[in-house]
């Protein structure tokens, strides 16, 4: 222990010695003035019970052993996965909504265990959550910021990120089902180019009531505001946009699609669409629809969804023509159309992949159709009175439709249904990574150690190379300095206890510059730390911190992807065997590394 360690330990402990366990009156007062309000129906009960509990604790006054020591990781019991909706069997079913008010322009999000619904009710903005395992609704606390418009919501694997659709001034918040609390995410910075376009009246009607949000496995891209939320740094940044953004504003209000590599926004036109990388820091123009498929020079709204790593685009006119795009190769392909199903301009309005298969609603009120092996199949019949319209979401492999509006006269409307796909429609198998990443460069010759820092681009230096894997959490880091003097921490994370078996990772050597291209699509059941992961590993650049650390915390410099790509390209392991050895090494040393209880006892290297 150093002098500094002693000073810090003594100083901090003395600094809080005067803070005792609150007295019972203090507790009661604090309970009454707690600032974050639980749902009104639960608040008084919670307060009363919490107060009673704390009174019991005060009366008992016993010194007890807390289960687990203070060094225990904060293992929060997460909500169990409960595929109960699918248990109802194929077809349409009604979702019980007795305790939920009708809400206008509702937004839906599925967390893996709960269906979160948010919208404007007669009493104001409300958020409710339904757990299929308990078949219970719970009203969630109000978000920390005022909501002015329809919201968009997206699940990141840890939180539901909610963004107010107001433009340009908006608010955002994140709901953590684990912590049962909201975080205020501040305001998404609206892109000036979009603000300027909006001031000139160039703001097409979005296909969805709330902002267009996409979770890429790394960031939440808000195409409506031109902003990007990074959960790791808890900060907003600007979405990369074309200089002549006015020509593309229509695309920003379509339903963007994450195809496993990029966020794709396309319309039924010969004009090019746009694609963003996973961090939203770069964009590119897509190969336009061929003239023999598209309606030339006329932007026709279309709905899109991901299908076998392609983007399926359904025209709202043109007899329901359907095409799909492989954004990586630029190849467009005509698919079987919804012949005769599209009767009205503006249809369809909804498309979504359920259980690996696209589902599209031809027009309002009509039964959705699913793309099967032999073409489009109607999901009907449904019991009389069932609504297929409203807001859609995918929840645990089923399609949830939520149709509500409290302003309807004479009777506010609320009908929620869900559709379980038939088991005879085989989900498409996931593509092999070797197929998805044909351009991975050949393995580079190895150097000493399992990392290969040699071959760094000019100007790069290695601050600290990790000769051996990994620390107690299965991570190994390489510290680099960029030509500009920025520090880069590159972390190799080996998943343990996740759904990916180590053997699955072995055929894939540590990826090089194609990492972002090969990143897997987010999956509803993967642990948060594995989202967007390369099969078996991912590289995480924590931040660049050439700036004073105080500034880095709140305003990290936008990450230069090209810088990272160049660095990562130099980090390829010698060969697959080296990678295999690394994985084996991690497993063997893991236990020893987990034993130390304090940071000082943790081995520096293993």
């Amino acid at each position, binding site marked *: *222990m*150093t002098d*500094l360690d002693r*000073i*810090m330990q003594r100083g*901090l*402990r*003395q*600094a*809080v*010695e005067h*803070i*005792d*366990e609150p007295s019972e009156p203090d507790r009661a007062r*604090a309970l009454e003035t*707690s600032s974050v309000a639980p749902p009104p129906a639960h608040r008084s009960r*919670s307060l009363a*019970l*919490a107060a009673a*509990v*704390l009174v019991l*604790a005060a009366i*008992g006054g016993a*010194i*007890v052993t*807390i*289960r*687990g020591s*203070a*060094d*225990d*990781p904060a293992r*929060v*019991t997460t909500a169990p996965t409960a595929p109960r909706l699918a248990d109802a069997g194929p077809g349409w079913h009604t979702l019980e909504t007795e305790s939920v008010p009708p809400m206008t322009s509702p937004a839906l999000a599925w967390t893996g265990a709960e269906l979160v619904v948010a919208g404007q009710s007669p009493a104001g903005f409300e958020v409710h959550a339904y757990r299929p395992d308990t078949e219970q609704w719970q009203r969630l606390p109000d978000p920390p910021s005022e909501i002015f418009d329809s919201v968009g919501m997206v699940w990141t694997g840890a939180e539901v990120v909610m963004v107010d659709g107001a433009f340009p001034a908006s608010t955002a918040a994140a709901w953590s089902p684990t912590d049962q609390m*909201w*975080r*205020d995410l501040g305001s998404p910075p609206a892109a000036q180019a979009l603000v300027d376009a909006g001031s000139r009246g160039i703001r097409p009607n979005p296909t969805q009531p709330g902002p267009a949000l996409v979770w890429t496995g790394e960031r939440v891209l808000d195409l409506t505001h031109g902003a990007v939320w990074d959960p*790791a740094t808890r900060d907003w940044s600007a979405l990369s946009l074309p200089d002549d953004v006015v020509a593309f504003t229509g695309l920003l209000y379509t339903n963007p699609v994450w195809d496993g590599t990029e966020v794709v926004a396309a319309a039924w036109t010969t004009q090019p669409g746009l694609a963003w990388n996973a961090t939203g820091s770069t964009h590119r123009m897509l190969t336009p629809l061929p003239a023999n498929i598209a309606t030339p020079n006329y932007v026709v709204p279309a709905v899109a969804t991901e299908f076998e790593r392609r983007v399926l685009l359904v025209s709202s006119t043109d007899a329901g023509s359907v095409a799909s795009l492989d954004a990586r190769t630029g190849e467009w392909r005509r698919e079987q159309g919804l012949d005769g199903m599209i009767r009205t301009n503006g249809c369809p309005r909804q498309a979504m992949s359920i259980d690996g298969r696209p589902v599209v609603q031809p027009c309002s009120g009509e039964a959705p159709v699913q793309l099967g092996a032999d073409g489009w199949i109607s999901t009907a019949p449904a019991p009389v009175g069932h609504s297929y319209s409203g807001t859609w979401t995918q929840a645990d492999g089923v399609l949830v439709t939520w149709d509500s509006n409290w302003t309807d006269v004479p009777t506010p409307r609320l009908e929620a249904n869900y559709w379980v796909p038939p088991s005879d429609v085989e989900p498409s198998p996931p593509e092999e990574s070797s197929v998805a990443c044909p351009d991975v460069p050949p393995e580079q010759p190895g150097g000493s150690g399992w990392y290969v820092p040699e071959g760094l681009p000019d100007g790069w230096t290695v601050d600290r190379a990790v000769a051996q894997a990994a*620390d*107690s*959490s299965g*991570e190994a*880091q390489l510290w680099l300095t960029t030509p500009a003097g920025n520090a880069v*921490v590159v*972390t190799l994370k080996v998943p343990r206890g996740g759904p990916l078996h180590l053997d699955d990772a072995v055929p894939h050597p540590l990826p090089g510059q194609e990492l972002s291209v090969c990143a897997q699509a987010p999956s509803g059941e993967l642990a948060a730390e594995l989202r967007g992961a390369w099969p078996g590993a991912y590289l995480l650049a*924590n931040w660049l911190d050439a700036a004073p*650390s*105080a*500034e880095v*915390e*709140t*305003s990290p410099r936008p990450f230069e992807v090209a810088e990272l790509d160049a660095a990562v390209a130099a980090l390829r392991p010698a060969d697959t065997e080296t990678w295999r050895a690394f994985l084996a090494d991690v497993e063997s040393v893991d236990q020893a590394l987990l034993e*130390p*209880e*304090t*940071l*000082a*006892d*943790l081995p*520096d290297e293993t």
Partner: protein
Amino acid sequence: MDAEVFAREATGVQQQVTRVVYLVAGDLGLAEECAQEAMIRAWSQAQAGRMPDSVRAWCTTVGLNHCRSQLRRRGAEQRALHRLGPPRVTAPATPDPLSDEVRHAVLALPVRQREVVVLHYLLDLDVAAIASTAEITPGAVRNALFHARKALSRSLTPDDRDPAATPTGASPAEEPT
């Protein structure tokens, strides 16, 4: 869940969370509020049959989350830090000037580094536990602690002596791994 069981589990937790948040936020009132919020949420979780494995760790995480959220509501974290100035001490000042010096040095750190420093030095948590509690990666823990120790060395040793460099025992926190 039985209230008495929860009461046993929760004994002393509120005090710990208050202390941690107080050192991170520099505001005793906010710390008490965050700790209280954590206790309420813990009880709510227990009621729903989702008792955290470690009430102590869970409440610390929730308390820090709530603290961060409250700081953000007051403005950007950095602006809040500068605006806060000396913490609002509603308890008797500590007699030891060292503790005030240390406390102010910690408050001068970015919020993330403050959290890591307090969890490490006050609660003696290891890397994994800090990472889990602060909801950041282990690498970020080491990084934050590395930079925090450098800054603390400068602010707590005006004679330019770098205590982190004393050869009385190397801590891995001196260099990020």
